[in-house]
C-alpha cells in the first residue's frame, strides 16, 4: 500500500476556510454551519419518505412500498459521517437522495442550501457539479482512458483544456496513478479503479462527497488506501458521508454515524 503522493490542495482552492478545519471524530453540530452569515446545513432531511415507482410489466402499477420513512437529520459543513445498516436498510437510497439521483416522495431534503423537494429540474445539474459521488462498482466509462474519465466532470463544467490537463495530472499524482493516465479502466486493479473513481468525484472540488460502499469490492489493504483518500478530502474541508458494511474500518476510524434499519433512522451520533 502506498501513501498518497501529493495533497490535492491546488484543486481545493476556493473551499471556504470555515468549511476546511474539521476532523474525523469531532463532535457533530446539529443544524449549524455558517456561510455568509446565514446559518445553513450541508445536508438536512426533515420527515423524508421515499417510494420507488413499480416497474412497468411487473403486473402492478402505482408507487411501491416506502423504502425510507420519516428520516430527519442534519449534517453540518465539513463533517465526516459513516452511514451504517444492514443490506436493504436504505443506505443507497439515502445516498441517492443526497447526490440528487432521487427525489423524495415526501418531506424536505435540503442539500447545499437548496431545497431539493421543490427545486426545478433544470436547477439540479449545477448543484450536482458541487457533489462528488463514489460508487462500489466505480462506474467509470469503460471506453475512456483514465485521463478522460477524470477529465469528464471538468469538461462537463466547460473548463479549458489547459486547466483540465493541470487539474487531472494533479489528481493522478495524488492517487498515485500518474503513469496510468492512458490506461483503460479494465486494465486497472479494483483498488486502482476505485482510486480513479474517488479522484473523479473530487476533481471538481465538491462541497459534499458521498461514497456508497467504496471499499466493498476491495481487500483490507486497498480499503485503507481508499479511506485515506476520503479522510484527506475531509481534512481539506469537504463534507463526507461514507456508507459501509465494514465494522473493522468503522472501528479503525471512529466518526459520527447514521444508523439505518428497515428504512428508518434509528441512531445518529
Amino acid at each position, binding site marked *: 500500500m502506498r501513501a498518497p503522493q501529493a495533497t490535492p490542495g491546488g484543486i481545493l482552492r476556493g473551499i471556504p476556510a470555515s468549511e476546511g478545519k474539521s476532523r474525523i471524530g469531532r463532535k457533530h453540530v446539529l443544524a449549524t454551519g455558517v456561510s455568509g452569515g446565514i446559518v445553513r446545513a450541508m445536508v438536512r432531511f426533515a420527515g423524508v419518505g421515499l417510494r420507488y415507482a413499480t416497474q412497468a410489466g411487473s403486473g402492478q402499477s402505482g408507487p411501491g412500498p416506502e423504502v425510507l420513512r420519516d428520516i430527519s437529520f442534519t449534517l453540518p459543513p465539513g463533517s465526516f459521517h459513516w452511514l451504517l445498516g444492514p443490506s436493504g436498510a436504505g443506505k443507497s437510497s439515502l445516498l441517492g437522495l443526497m447526490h*440528487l439521483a432521487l427525489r423524495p416522495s415526501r418531506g424536505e431534503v435540503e442539500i447545499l442550501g437548496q431545497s431539493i423537494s421543490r427545486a426545478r429540474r433544470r436547477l439540479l445539474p449545477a448543484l450536482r*457539479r458541487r457533489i462528488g459521488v463514489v460508487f462500489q462498482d466505480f462506474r467509470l466509462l469503460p471506453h475512456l482512458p483514465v485521463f478522460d474519465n477524470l477529465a469528464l466532470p471538468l469538461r462537463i463544467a466547460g473548463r479549458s483544456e489547459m486547466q483540465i490537463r493541470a487539474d487531472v495530472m494533479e489528481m493522478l499524482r495524488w492517487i498515485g496513478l500518474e*503513469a496510468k493516465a492512458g490506461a483503460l479502466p479494465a486494465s486497472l486493479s479494483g483498488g486502482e479503479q476505485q482510486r480513479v473513481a474517488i479522484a473523479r468525484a473530487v476533481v471538481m472540488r465538491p462541497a459534499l462527497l458521498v461514497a456508497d460502499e467504496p471499499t466493498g469490492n476491495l481487500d483490507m489493504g486497498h480499503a485503507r488506501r481508499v479511506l485515506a483518500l476520503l479522510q484527506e478530502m475531509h481534512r481539506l474541508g469537504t463534507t463526507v458521508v461514507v456508507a459501509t458494511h465494514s465494522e473493522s474500518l468503522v472501528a479503525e476510524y471512529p466518526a459520527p454515524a447514521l444508523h439505518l434499519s428497515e428504512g428508518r433512522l434509528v441512531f445518529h451520533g
Partner: protein
Amino acid sequence: MRMSGALRRSRGRDPLGLRRALSDRLLPALVAAMALLGALALAGARGAADLSGRWQSGAAAAITVQLPAATGGEKLDQALSALRALPEVAEAKAMDQARLAALLRPWLGEAPALPLPVVIELHLKRLPAAPEALAERVAQAVPGASVEAHGVWVARLVALARSLQGVAMAALLLVAGIGAAVVAVATRAGIAARREAITILHDLGATDAEIAGRFARRVALLVGGGALAGTLVAAPVLAAFADLAAPLLGGQPAGSVLALPWGSLPWAELALLPLLAAGIGWLTAQLTVRRWLRRLP
C-alpha cells in the same frame, strides 16, 4: 502507459462513445436511399410545375366562339351580351382582327381580301364538369356560331399537372416523416447502448441540453452525409429522366452523358436536401433524447 494527445482529445470529445453506438453505416445508407426518393419527388414536383406553367397559357381561352365573317357591330354586341349573361362565363371579349390575321398569316399568307371570322374568347369562372354541354348552351345563346372547347381540356391537363405536383410534395413529406422515424429508432438504439454512460454524465451534472446535443450533432453528421450521398446518386438519374421527357417538351434526346440536360435539374432544391435532412435528424435526435432524459431526476 502513455497515449498520444490527439487520441486523448479525440476520445475526450466523445465521452458517450457515440461513434460506435450510432453506426456510421446503416443510418447513412438508409438516409441516402430516402434522399434519393426525396430527390425524385422533388424533381417530379418541379417537372409538374413546369408542365403546369407551359399548359397554363393554352388554357387561357377555355372556349372560343366563331361567328361568320360578316358579323359586326350590333350583332357582335348582342352575342357578347348573351355570352356574358351565362353564369359560367367570367369574361367574353372579341379577338382583335389584326391579331387574328397575324396568327393565321403562316398558313394563309398575306391575303387582305380574305374575310376572317369574328372570334370571341370566353374565360370561365371554373372548369365545367361537362364541357360539351356548356359548348351546346353557348351555341344556343349565339345562333349561327361554332364553338370550340379545346381549352377546357388543356385546363384539365393543367389541373392534372397540379395534382401531380401535390402528390410529389406529399411523397416528399412522407419521405421526411419516415426519415425522422428512422432517426428516432436509431437514436433510441444509441440511448439503449449508452444508457449507463448517459446516466453517469447526468449524475456528474451534465444538462439535458449537453447530452442531447452530443447525440444531435452525431446524428446530424450521419444523416447529412447520407443525404448528400443519396442526392449525388440522384442527380444523374434525374438528368436521365429529364432527357427521356425531352421529346414531350419539344427537345431532342441527348447522345451522351455530358449532353444530358444537367441545367434543367432543380439544383437549388437538391442542394438544400442534405441540409434539410441534417436539420430533421438534429431536431429528431434532440427531441428523442430529451424525452428519454425526462425519466431521470
